[in-house]
């Protein structure tokens, strides 16, 4: 994934879409695409795999986005929504509730940036949470493999746990590899040899 956020704006009215694009461009460097024809909307969005989709709450095509959200998992693509009348408390509540939505007045360009900020902040938070979760999971997996490799070395060479780890680390340093990778290779080849 690149660092530039890609944004799709679903807005049939060009006069409304352009100011939004302008205010986004002023706010930062984004890859912005406007969809004005809702025909094949799901396919158009799927092809571009945007980070953020902006759509007017009054647009009936919003239900199509719901399908995309189901298909890709709820945290995959935040959708910021625009509504004609609302207040700050409502927006805060929406975000507090964990909804990937920020609800503001109409499609006023001046309001788009904060909306997007919120959507992005949300997106990054989800991203961080997902990364953290993936990292934690991987660390746990690696520790399990290292423990198994240590056990094999202890058994084969008649050494204690501390020495087994020293042997493993030395092998890793010699081969210029991570301890976890050497451990995985050992466990794998032991499996092959039965």
């Amino acid at each position, binding site marked *: 994934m690149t660092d530039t956020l890609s944004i799709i704006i679903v807005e049939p009215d060009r006069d409304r879409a352009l100011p939004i694009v302008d205010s986004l461009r002023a706010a930062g460097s984004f890859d912005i695409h406007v969809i004005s024809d809702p025909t094949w909307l799901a396919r158009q969005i799927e092809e571009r795999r945007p980070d953020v989709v902006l759509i007017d709450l009054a647009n009936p095509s919003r*239900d199509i986005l719901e399908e995309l959200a189901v298909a890709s998992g709820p945290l995959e693509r935040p959708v910021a929504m625009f509504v004609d009348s609302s207040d700050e408390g409502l927006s805060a509540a929406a975000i507090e509730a964990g909804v990937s939505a920020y609800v503001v007045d109409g499609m006023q360009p001046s309001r788009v940036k904060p909306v997007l900020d919120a959507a992005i902040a949300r997106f990054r938070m989800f991203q961080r949470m997902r990364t953290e979760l993936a990292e934690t999971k991987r660390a746990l997996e690696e520790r399990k493999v290292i423990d198994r490799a240590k056990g094999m070395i202890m058994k084969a060479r008649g050494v204690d746990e501390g020495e087994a780890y020293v042997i493993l680390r030395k092998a890793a340093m010699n081969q210029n590899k991570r301890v976890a990778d050497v451990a995985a290779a050992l466990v794998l080849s032991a499996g092959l040899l039965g």
Partner: protein
Amino acid sequence: MRQTQISVGFIPLVDAAPLVVAHEMGFAAEEGIALDLRRAPSWSSIRDMLSFGQVDAAHMLAPMPVATALGLGGGMTPVVAGSVLSVNGTVIGVNTQIAARLRSAGHNFAFDDAYSAGAALIAATPDGLRIGVPFPFSMQRALVEYWLGTIGHAVREKVTIHTVPPPLMVDAIEAGEIDAFCVGEPWGSMAVEKGVATLLLPGAAIWKFAPEKILAVRSTWAETESVLLGRLIRAVWRAGRWLAEPASQSLAAELLSRQRYLDLSPEIIERALTGRLVISSRGEERQVPQFLEFFDGVATFPWRSQGEWIGRHLAQQHQLDVTASATAGGAVFRTDLYRAALGRTSAILPVESSKPEGGMPEVSSVPGMTGHVSLKPDTFFDGTVFEPIQDNR
């Protein structure tokens, strides 16, 4: 008496009738409430309006609150069904090319045999079939999955289901984005009227008594505003009773046709209310029993077993735990709220809160709290009976 205002979101569909009638015919006023009916552009927006408190209650697809309870889709705030608003009322239609192929293959559009219609449809679409439904969590989608999945396990292999908002269904089939649809009225009839589709089946041919729309409220609101909710459930129940009178149909069609509701010709709307549908641009008509029910057969009773069926179906489609999901779905259908609201009216309520879904081939009489309750046929086209998980009264 000063009236308390209750804001209610609705989608412009024929089955919003109980809400419109409760307001227009004074059933709400009789209960000392004033309904502020707010038309919503999409199901996701109606869900958000309800979640964020912009409305107190909403016309909602029966599977939506169940999906939220299962953590599927964008809903976050727990929502419950205080009452069922309508049973059935959906139609399946195909584009004119498929209709022509079906006719030349000898299909008679009898409109009552889901097996033969489904088999003929699969045979007529060797290159795949794209079906439009209004929402990922809708009875339309569930019925299509159940129907075609039962006939040939074909759903996964060659059938793809797409979300198309009802008002855009006619355009979508005309533009070739979809080959067929399952949608609530009046949108099937509108597609026939525009000459872009022929109706193949009513949803009732798949499941004779499918809960279609529910009266949705936030579960916290149901607790804090239980008195108001009781008034709302009673007003809507009386509106349903009025709608079930044949004499009411043309007036109901007139009310719904108004600009602030459906903004369509009353003639189109009346087809669903009378169950007499025009299925093709040739003008062929079909009379469908139980096409759309608002009252008869205790249509508005939120059977826990209906919620369980939905939960079970969603679990199968989304790889969730089936028993846990069915239980969670059943808990969304709040028979306790319904009973509390209607306990002291003339309504005769069933003793049980669950029933074997699909277990009633004929009109049947079951024990009521006072006397007996007459239930309508509720069978599935393949004869499967879904036993309730539990029967808590």
